[in-house]
């Protein structure tokens, strides 16, 4: 039986198209295979660099990138999705936790932060993971661009008192940035939220990995 000419042509076109789809997928799969390990290493190296910046390596002896926990607390940590907590230990005893926190109300979308908190509830440091703030104004929250983010070091929920956890413009204790108030406001709020979260959940945060 002979198929009509138009049908064979269609089938042929379909075959050629699927051939290309297959070849394209093969190329992508091959490159993925070749780069996967390197990409994973890059990502954990980048995280490790940030963690080391918050918490000098001498204070703990575990690999924080491997000692993690996923937590979800939308009201305090600003995200519906699970966020990673990195735990620092020395001789197996908890030293500090570094929380991934989202400030959802940045000037230009969500700002992701790393907030390092010592076991006693004192801030070790805050660093920006990702932001889309205005270049030259809001983006001075980055540690590489100004010292603003370093003012959190050593603070805790009682210092300043909770009512003072605002930017100066709102009657609080924290400096804003010249020309940018919304960004610092969002960050102060996010840092305070993570301190409250830490106080409420400290024991659970340091529990050994439950199931892995």
């Amino acid at each position, binding site marked *: 039986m002979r198929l009509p000419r138009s049908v064979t042509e269609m089938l042929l076109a379909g075959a050629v*198209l699927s051939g*290309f789809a297959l070849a394209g*997928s093969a*190329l992508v799969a091959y*490159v993925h295979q070749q780069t996967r390990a390197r*990409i994973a290493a*890059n990502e954990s190296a*980048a995280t490790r660099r940030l963690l080391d910046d918050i918490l000098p390596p001498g204070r703990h002896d575990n690999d924080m990138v491997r000692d993690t926990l996923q937590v979800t607390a939308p009201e305090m940590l600003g995200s519906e999705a699970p966020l990673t907590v990195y735990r620092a230990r020395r001789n197996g005893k908890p030293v500090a936790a570094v929380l991934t926190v989202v400030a959802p109300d940045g000037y230009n979308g969500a700002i992701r932060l790393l907030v390092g908190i010592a076991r006693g509830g004192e801030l070790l440091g805050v660093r920006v993971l990702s932001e889309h703030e205005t*270049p030259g104004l809001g983006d001075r929250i980055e540690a590489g661009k100004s010292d603003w983010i370093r003012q959190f070091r050593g603070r805790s929920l009682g210092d300043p008192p909770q009512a003072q956890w605002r930017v100066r413009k709102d009657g609080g204790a924290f400096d804003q940035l010249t020309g940018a108030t919304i960004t610092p406001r969002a960050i102060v709020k996010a840092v305070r939220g993570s301190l409250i979260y830490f106080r409420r959940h400290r024991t659970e945060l340091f529990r050994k990995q439950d199931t892995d």
Partner: protein
Amino acid sequence: MQDKPYFAIARDGLWNNNPGLVQLLGLCPLLAVSATVVNALGLGFATLLTLTASNVSVSLIRKLVREEIRIPVFVLIIASFVTAVEMAMNAYFHQLYLILGIFIPLIVTNCSILARAETFASRTDPARAAADGLAMGVGFTGVLVTLGAMRELLGQGTLLANAQMLAGQWGQHLTVHVIPDYDGFLLAMLPPGAFIGLGLLLALKNVIDDRSAQRRRAGSTAVDRTETPVEGGAAA
């Protein structure tokens, strides 16, 4: 098209039919990623690589693909190469990859790549297609980098800031602080700066073209009235 001379291919890509200045294609990444020279170079190279690879492949398969399905096939080819380039950048230029973010996958939608596949590469041999991809890619990168240099210089008084993201450790020494203790000029770094900068570049190109056309007219006497028309805006 089949036997377009190589020097014409190069001249078109770099100047006469430049994707950024004449065809005005791929403006979204051009405007968004040209805040600094290093970002511009990164995106420029990624585009150049994709453009050349897709041009060569399209040219190689030009006799195999039926008219009706050529566009889906071109899109498949371009998307595969862009994904591969994206993963390679993530692996080898991780920091730059993080900064360029969404604009690397968006190279797929840079219409100048599909335009070259359709209007040139699918009608010529692989060597010419490669030359065209290179010329257009270099032309695009050139505009990106020029705009990036203008904006970075005006915006923050440096050139090649963060070069270590492209060149590794020694790249740090490449950064030039042209104006020390510069306060910065925010407008240049923001999107309006990109539009104004591109406008100035377009004006400059038109002035140069006008001048050289005038000179040519003055040089050739009334005997030769056939002015060589520039093959501009072919794909617009």
